[in-house]
């Protein structure tokens, strides 16, 4: 079957909150081994798209296939990095504990994590440059460090496809570089990485595949094919020149502040 060649296949996906469509009739075919950005304006349904693929939001219609089978059967192949702001970072737990949560699924019910899970978690923390922070209380982490902890937790899930919701949101330049290096490593290992992304300026540099949505799917394909000015205009409603100009400005302001 041709389907087996695709890592993610979404057909006719429609999601509505209280009669208001958030996603409308989305079709998506993603080959394995790509680094894909999902871009679109605020409220376009980027997060909802990821969440409905992961079964966290119940779609009104449509189906999702992961390597040709329904998500429920393929959970083991999927890793997830939620938005950093979606959890309470004052929760009484340590960095190592959070990362070990990525092994809970593999552990199964009731069994507690042990030395093996600990070692796996430490390895992942080393990979994201957080090896010195294993016993740190999570409330003491900076935004960039929190993001790395979430990435490490996804790494120990040992997945084939990763969904990441705005991993670059509010992180420092060092973390951004560390994350993109890591994503490229994952791609080199043949994994598929889907990233909700905000910064249009870096799409061509970071990603090789892109999906533009604004409630409906505007375009999806390689960056060369899909990331065109016309598609951007369709997604952002004709304000793209103004928008990309503005984005440049805000980037400059941002880098000034950081520097």
């Amino acid at each position, binding site marked *: 079957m041709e389907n087996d060649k695709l890592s993610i296949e979404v057909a006719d996906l429609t999601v509505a909150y209280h009669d208001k469509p958030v996603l409308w009739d989305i079709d998506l075919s993603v080959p394995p081994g790509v680094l894909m950005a999902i871009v679109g304006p605020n409220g376009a349904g980027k997060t909802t798209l990821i969440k409905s693929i992961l079964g966290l939001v119940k779609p009104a219609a449509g189906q999702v296939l992961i390597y040709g089978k329904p998500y429920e059967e393929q959970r083991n192949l999927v890793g997830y990095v939620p938005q950093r702001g979606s*959890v309470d970072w004052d929760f*009484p737990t340590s960095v190592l504990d959070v990362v070990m949560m990525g092994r*809970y699924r593999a552990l199964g019910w009731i*069994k507690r*994590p042990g030395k093996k899970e600990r070692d796996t978690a430490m390895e992942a923390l080393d990979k994201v440059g957080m090896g010195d922070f294993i016993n740190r209380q999570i409330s003491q982490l900076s935004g960039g460090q929190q993001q790395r902890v979430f990435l490490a937790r996804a790494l120990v899930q040992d997945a084939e496809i990763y969904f990441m919701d705005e991993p670059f949101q509010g992180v420092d330049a060092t973390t951004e570089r560390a994350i993109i290096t890591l994503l490229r490593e994952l791609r080199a290992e043949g994994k598929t990485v889907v990233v909700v992304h905000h910064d249009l300026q870096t799409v061509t540099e970071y990603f090789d595949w892109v999906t533009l949505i604004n409630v409906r799917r505007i375009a999806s394909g390689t960056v060369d094919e899909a990331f065109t000015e016309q598609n951007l205009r369709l997604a952002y409603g004709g304000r793209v020149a103004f928008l990309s100009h503005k984005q440049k400005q805000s980037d400059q302001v941002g880098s000034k502040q950081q520097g």
Partner: protein
Amino acid sequence: MTEILTLLKDLFTDYTLRTVAMGSATLGIVSGALGCFAVLRKQSLLGDAISHAALPGIALAFLFTGSKSPLIIVIGAAIIGWIGTMFIMSIVKHTRIKSDSALGLVLSSFFGFGLVLLTFIQRMPTANQAGLDTFLFGQASALLERDIVVMGVLGLVVLAIMSLFWKEFKLISFDPDFAASNGFPIQKLDILITSLIVIAIVIGLQTVGVVLMSAMVVAPAAAARQWTDRLSLMIIIAAFFGALAGVSGSMISSLTSRLPTGPTIVLCISFLVGVSMLFAPNRGLIWNWLRRQRNRRKLQLEAVLSNLYELAKQHGSIDRAHSKAVLEAMSPDRAESVDSTLDELQKRRWARVTTNNQWAITQKGWDEVERFLKESSKK
């Protein structure tokens, strides 16, 4: 003093006192432990709704069976409390009403219904009706050994389930989306954990009463959070605080006649919350205040020392001394503290006072300034 000793002796020998203490310790441990999950899941008010919603359950259990046996009352309270909770959860899920409004709706309507039933029971021409209204504010002295057995068994079951599903509860409390993406049935786990909280509350109703039982869910957890950053330790501390407040509160109320138990226990746990908020290391207010003071002091020291350093640099000599007025003029917003800061600098041998009462930086102070200038430029 001798009174306290007698009281402590009675705790082990006196039947009533021992029963009361054991009962309130049990309720404190169970509600303290489960309360941690309620608080961490931002469901503090859920306890309030559950305990109020349980009141009609108590009345209905009596109406249907004519018995006031603790097991039957607890079962009635648990069933109606649980129904109330499921009501809240499904209102939030299926309507646009937010959870705080849903809590309020269920709490007041169930509690109102319970009060109506209680009034109705009190007017019934049977001899057996008295005493149900003690469930409003609780009455520890009415606890019997068989009550303790019921409480103890239920408590053990609740704590056993909690430790069995420890990993899963921790995960859904911290990051429910991640748990769901991993295939954990968060809705079922949600119902399970809430049901455990219902049982924890129901255990305490006879002692603390429906009106104030929610304090035993929220307060021990809130106090324990101040002392630790680890979930397991937080639960142990909360259980300990709950037991401590339960025992001391019910003993105080049993010493004085007509002092309702619930409010006394709640005052005890509130005291523990107050102490924790003030004195706990790291998170406590006093600790914070001390830390701020220390930081301010350090900044002041660095500021005055830097001024001396600048002056020495300008004049090209480390031995050139200046009057205090010059230093005060250099930091006008901290002028009044320059005196004490200079004393401290002298104590640390970072600055010295000359014979004509003028101030100069020392070599040691000079090195210190260079060190922190280097440090801050690195950042």
